[in-house]
């Protein structure tokens, strides 16, 4: 489960299931759903903090995946990244449109990030990814980590991150760029 050979096989399998879905293979799509829905739902839940909204968004994302499966291009990235991008984008679009009516304690959420991954294990299906990500997150500076997490999990633009932290725009851009690059190196993402 944690070996890179296995995760490579998983990636190839998900890509071929997605291609079969593009040809209208519903059974293949059911397997895409099974493989991807925990990641999609977890991402939506994390960004939206509302199980009902997260479930709605999961449904939207999976239907979008079914309808646009033919647009998936393995040359441009993994099936998992394709689905994660779709999920995060939808969740962020939603959070940006409901932001004004919700009270969200972003700072607290950032501080509790690593802790939550450990504590909510009865709800969260622990994956090999979680440990690696938590480990690699520790390799970022505090300010890099804060900027990356505010941007990704709070759905803030880098401008909003700069406002929130009362930091200069170029500073925040560099923190995000250097932080994500460092994370990428640590995780070995290609």
């Amino acid at each position: 489960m944690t070996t890179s050979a296995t995760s490579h096989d998983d990636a190839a399998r998900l890509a071929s299931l997605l291609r079969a879905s593009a040809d209208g293979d519903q059974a293949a799509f059911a397997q895409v759903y099974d493989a991807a829905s925990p990641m999609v739902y977890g991402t939506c839940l994390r960004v939206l903090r509302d199980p009902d909204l997260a479930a709605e968004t999961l449904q939207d994302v999976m239907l979008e995946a079914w309808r646009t499966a033919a647009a998936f291009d393995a040359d441009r990235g993994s099936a998992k990244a394709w689905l994660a991008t779709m999920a995060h984008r939808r969740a962020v679009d939603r959070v940006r449109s409901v932001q004004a009516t919700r009270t969200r304690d972003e700072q607290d959420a950032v501080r509790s990030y690593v802790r939550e991954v450990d504590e909510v294990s009865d709800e969260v299906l622990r994956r090999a990814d979680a440990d690696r990500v938590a480990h690699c997150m520790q390799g970022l500076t505090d300010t890099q980590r804060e900027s990356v997490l505010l941007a990704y999990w709070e759905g803030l633009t880098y401008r909003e991150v700069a406002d929130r932290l009362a930091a200069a725009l170029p500073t925040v851009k560099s923190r995000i760029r250097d932080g994500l690059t460092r994370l990428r190196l640590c995780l070995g993402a290609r």
Partner: protein
Amino acid sequence: MTSHANHPDDEPVNAHDLLAAWALDAVDDHERSVVERAIAADPELALEARGLRETTALLAGSVAAAPPPALRADVLAIIAREAPRSGESHPTAPLPSHEVEDTNAHPAFVTPKPRRHGVARWQSFALAAVVAGALAVPTTLAIQNDQRATQVEQQMSALESAMRQPGAQLVQGDVAGGGIAAAVLTDGEAVFTASDLPDPGDGLTYQLWRQDGDHMVSAGTLALNDGRVSATVSAEVPVDVLAVSIEPEGGSDAPTTDPVIVLAGI
């Protein structure tokens, strides 16, 4: 790599500089389109973009959580209704959902040809009018209420960036029940915005539709924020008709009520 388009800061967008922010969805619509055009044109940038997206996918995977079990059957039932008829294979079909007639389409909802009613055609002053009028926010308010201003800014920049596409058309009209709507229609994308919309009512939501052939395809439900909604619709086919109806919360597979607005291109 850079665009000198009007931006809130009047600063050109540097795609390389914003690549990580783009990978985290931490850019506005205008910046996103600049970055994505740069990626399409530069294989080296595309490679880096790919690595960063794979990194964010690992972030997404790190919070995986079990979804409500009942949702699986719902999703699979919906796709079963959309799937090509059994025995027919569409190995090259770009979008399976477009291959079939949607038997759920509300017959009254199909936009009559020449489908121009309630539509103002693109005129050179119209975008400025919509941006300045319908979405007006004085700069003082922008300082007082940065979140709201950011949303308006995003609406404007999405409209502006769509207007720069070749063949883009601006259409606008009044919404039945109150409010006004505007959309920029382009070949593969449409940006829809509306302001001053009343609350749709308890348990109800606004849902956006695009016409595909003789039926309407959902473009998602619209979350109302301070009377305002906006959405970007992407499709593999030209988006020339958009409509909004009021549907039960969560949205419908096909429109169940008459549209409150239909916006159609020429």
